[in-house]
């Protein structure tokens, strides 16, 4: 409920697709949030693993890893899931292990 004080957030979030921008998605340079008066206030995402105080991401629990993997098998980037860098690193390792033993796909064939 902090809509009363529109504090301009630093544009490190970078994740939400901004409308009215025609450049490629990778071209989001440093002046990301300063474009006209339109500023998006996105609720800050919190790392799900930090909330639950996860110390070890188990590669065997597929249902735990599934939300962080796209349907085609890609690992979702941090900017979309809000995972912190530490847990994203562990998550990457876990997903790669799960892939090796056919618990998760490298890429799903059609």
């Amino acid at each position, binding site marked *: 409920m902090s809509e009363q004080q529109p504090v301009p957030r630093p544009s490190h979030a970078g994740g939400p697709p901004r409308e009215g921008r025609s450049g490629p998605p990778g071209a989001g340079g440093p002046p990301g949030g300063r474009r006209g008066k339109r500023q998006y206030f996105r609720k800050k995402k919190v790392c799900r693993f930090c909330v639950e105080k996860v110390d070890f991401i188990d590669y065997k629990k597929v249902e735990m890893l599934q939300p962080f993997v796209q349907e085609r098998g890609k690992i979702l980037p941090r900017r979309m899931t809000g995972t912190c860098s530490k847990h994203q690193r562990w998550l990457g390792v876990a997903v790669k*292990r799960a892939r*090796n033993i*056919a618990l998760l796909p490298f890429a799903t064939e059609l």
Partner: protein
Amino acid sequence: MAERLYDLIFICMPTTPEEEITKIVSTLEQTASEHGGKVEKVEKWGTRKMAYRVAKQREGFYVYLALHSTQGALIKELERRLKVSDAVIKYMTVRLDEEIKRQQKLVAHREHRARRRPRKPAAAPAAGPAPEQQAAAS
């Protein structure tokens, strides 16, 4: 000689009879004890769908072992046996002791912090507005 902890998962053909899988597991256990290791846990996950095709199969019988070992030669031998076995179509060994050590360290750190700086009871500010609301309603 530090003791190391490993996870060993292997996948058998879905057509493999149960007895054969039990036999494979027991030979692995025997090999482990010969090399000074020990199989801590055996879990048969049963037949489940694989994420991609392995050996032209879409399903496989997963078996999971957790084991202790003091020498890497044991892992080599176990993997060799799995490779030779016809029923086994895929296997993977992961060394986990370092990660578990890290995990224990994190848990210890958190507990230490919790002991040193106990949370102040948050009851006082939370209980504040409630009586006012009640008073306004009545």
